[in-house]
């Protein structure tokens, strides 16, 4: 039998966002693969150069749907670093709460991510339904469900009220109570074991050489998490652990995400406890938002997103708009070199699992 060219995507139930892979298969096995990004390219970096510092807030969350807040935090922190703004403490804690809530919501979305390719649709429905409860929190805290546009340079837009705090506490209790159900449904499931264990292997040396970060790297046994290695906000003031695994396969990556939900819950509870009263923001600079300016300078800010190192490199020429912003999509290395070099050898039916558990995320790669 000869080689057959097979198109994966750009629309595929096992893939969030639009991303395409041209696969050359022989029998059931992929021989060669070519990543084809660009379906979600919207030119964010260029658009940012043409909007005021404050206006960009409405634009940047759109780079990443399941976890938009990482963009807001990176953008805000990069500006604060260049302009040397002291952000009020309370705002930093609120940012951490939002980031961890977003992490939970995004990890919840990884259950549909494997539910789709495996045909285990119950996990998809559960994941989406429980994520919605986090979105309810976002709605009451930030005023929007998906794109929050809430974390601004200098702090956050509004304060966290006791009522919203109650909602967070209740929702966290609920989710914590729900997590064992997921373990029963997914992680003890024989079919899941059969389909995920030993699949989409990535060893430590390869991961490090490629620059893979996040659970992809931690599933190979190293506890590399930017929250610990290069702490930002107040991650050095809360107690949490970095779950790791040694198998480096699809199963351990998904399971690490599941374990991280517990850690996120733990972090948020500490935040609520340690958060002082006070202001939640300071103006980015003097004057009205139409005339905010950031002094000349450059900075790189990176944070640990659900998919790994997510970063903003920002250049200001001292004007009212960013001069240049470059976004480091967390899944860039595995999306390109990973697909090209390590997807070959995978069976066709495992390709969605490979892409999904490797966190290939088209919107952040395309930008």
């Amino acid at each position, binding site marked *: 039998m000869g080689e057959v060219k097979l198109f994966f995507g750009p629309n595929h139930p096992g893939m969030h966002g639009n991303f395409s892979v041209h696969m050359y298969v022989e029998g059931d096995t992929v021989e060669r693969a070519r990543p084809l990004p660009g379906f979600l390219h919207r030119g964010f970096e260029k658009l940012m150069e043409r909007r005021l510092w404050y206006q960009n807030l409405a634009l940047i969350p759109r780079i990443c749907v399941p976890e938009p807040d990482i963009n807001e935090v990176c953008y805000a922190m990069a500006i604060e670093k260049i302009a040397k703004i002291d952000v009020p403490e309370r705002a930093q804690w609120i940012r951490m709460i939002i980031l961890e809530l977003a992490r939970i919501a995004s990890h919840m979305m990884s259950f549909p991510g494997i539910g789709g390719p495996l045909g285990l649709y119950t996990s998809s429905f559960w994941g989406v339904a429980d994520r919605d409860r986090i979105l309810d929190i976002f*709605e*009451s805290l930030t005023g929007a469900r998906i794109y929050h546009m809430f974390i601004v340079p200098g702090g956050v*837009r509004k*304060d966290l009220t006791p009522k919203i705090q109650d909602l967070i506490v209740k929702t966290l209790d609920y989710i914590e109570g729900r997590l064992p159900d997921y373990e029963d*449904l997914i992680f*003890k499931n024989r079919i899941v074991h059969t389909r995920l264990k030993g699949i989409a292997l990535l060893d430590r040396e390869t991961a490090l050489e490629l620059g893979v970060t996040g659970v992809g790297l931690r599933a190979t046994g190293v506890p590399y998490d930017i929250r610990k290695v290069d702490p930002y906000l107040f991650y050095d003031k809360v107690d949490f652990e970095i779950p790791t695994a040694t198998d480096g396969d699809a199963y351990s990556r998904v399971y690490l995400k599941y374990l991280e939900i517990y850690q996120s819950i733990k972090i948020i509870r500490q935040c609520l406890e340690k958060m002082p009263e006070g202001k939640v923001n300071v103006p980015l600079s003097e004057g*009205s*938002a139409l*005339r905010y300016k950031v002094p000349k300078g450059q900075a790189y800010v990176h944070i640990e997103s659900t998919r790994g190192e997510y970063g903003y490199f920002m250049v200001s020429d001292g004007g009212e708009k960013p001069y240049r912003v470059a976004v480091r999509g967390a899944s860039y290395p595995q999306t390109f070199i990973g697909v090209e070099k390590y997807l070959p050898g995978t069976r066709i039916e495992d390709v969605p699992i490979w892409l999904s558990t490797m966190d290939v995320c088209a919107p952040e790669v395309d930008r």
Partner: protein
Amino acid sequence: MKNKTMPDKDFFSPIKAWKFLFKKPVTIKVPYVKREAAERYRGFHINDWNECIGCGTCAKICPTDAIKMVEVDDLPQEYGQKPQRPVIDYGRCSFCAMCVDICTTGSLKMTREYVHISPEPEDFIFAPTEKGIHGIEEVPVGWVRDEASELLELERVEMEMLDGEERVQSFIEYVKGYSKEQAIHEAARCVECALCTDRCPQHMQIPEYIKAIWKDDLNDALKWLLKGDETNNMLGANPFSAVCGRVCTHKCEEACSIGNRGEAIAIRWLKRYIVDNVSDYKKIIEIKPAKKDKKIAIIGSGPAGLSAAYFLSTMGYDVEVFESLSKPGGVMRYGIPSYRLPDEALDKDIAFIQALGVKIHVGISVGKDISLESLKEKYDAVFISTGFSLGRSTKVPGTDHEDVLQALPLLREIRDYLRGEGPKPKIPKSLVVIGGGNVAMDVARSIARLQKVEYGQVDVKVTSLERTFDEMPADMEEIEEGSEEGIEFYPGWGPVRIIIDEEKIKGVELKKCVEVFDENGRFNPKFDEIQKLYLDADMVVEAIGQAPDYSYLPEDLKEQLEFVRGRLVTNEYRQTNIEWLFAGGDIVNGPDIIHGVADGYWAARGIDEYLSKGVK
């Protein structure tokens, strides 16, 4: 947690999911079940049309260009408002609520509605109203601006001044002026709504020069001041920027949209910052018009006269100005005290006008030294701006005493003395000023300074018919600053007589004023004759208003001209019934410098048009 081993497979575990089989679903049945969004939800917009002033700041901050300002014809055309309202394209809106957070009045809010459905693409553009976009009586309000989400800076950068105790000791200008950092900071508060431009009688290009300050380009800022809108006949230019930057009545600041929720931008001080921080204007501003072979005479070198001279010479005319006093400037030189307007500031403005080739003849009184008819013969057009030079008297018994003075001649005397060009005026130990306007304040504060220097203490009393500080026509800051300098105020009293004993003034007898204006708003004071007040004084100054002096106008011309309540009637180009005669300033409009500048501007355009028609 770190070493938690991965779960083993278990045949029965997944089956536990069956426990949800008979539970109620977590989803809701839309549209049968209605769910209201969270309290801060950013749904659709509400805009209170009565509160909205159409400033358009929402449209400027909108990151997606979703908001357009659309004109609404039947809205009231008032100062501080524009007859337009925001129209929002929900095909573009990103529901970020920046428009709500920056709204200068707080009229914009967002609702707690989730859903807007229509198969029609046309159904996604709205001008939100009090009832939102769906016309619901009690729209549930979601996101509103609060202190934390505020996007304006409401507080003004404070202007440093000498304190009252210190400034009363001399005639040194007590307002220090902004530093560069302060000015850029203050300029950054502006939202460029241009409501100020509409309000300014001369329509100065205020947002443009404030923006230039913010960009730290003072040469550009000065261009906006002195040349205005170059594409539109220099509209908004003001040759007296150094003067107006100090003593303008700044109506613009009343119209400022930031003033709705906070303190208006300090437009006047920003203007002063520009002129104080540039060197000679003529090194920056280039005006080289094509020469026109026409000559114009201007009578009076006050704000209107010299402005007309400036604008005419930028058009290429030969201009000569006739001033009866020994220095040009009129009220700016002889009326306003030097602690508010030092000579150097005025000289800077006048120097630039002279640099354009304007000839100013001082000490020549038209009507005495030279007749108006002879000017008419020599020049192609004449502009008169002779101002209000005569004082008004209350005419109560005793006002003919030599120590009862008129405000303007006294102020003139003081300024001449301070400049070293005149004798020392008589400084009273105790002074009563009758009048509640800015001129009364100028007299009171000037004499207070002289008293402080001469006797070491201030004894000045100001009395006016108006019963409250708000009713008094003087600027509030003048009254406040005067109080700080030790001046006492007695509002609500009318003079009965000047008490004279042995040829010397002892004081003023006053009666209670119960009403200044009648129900029609006309000046018609009513008194309570029984309530009396006696104020000690050895000098009294009357500052109840000024009147024009038309004695230089020949009778035959006077008959052709039309006067309404002492003021000359002109068309919009300040042209009188006599086609070669134009007029401006206090004798036409008044009451302040910036109106005079506007008169000069429009008269210049009128004269240009008149002479371009080829008459004469």
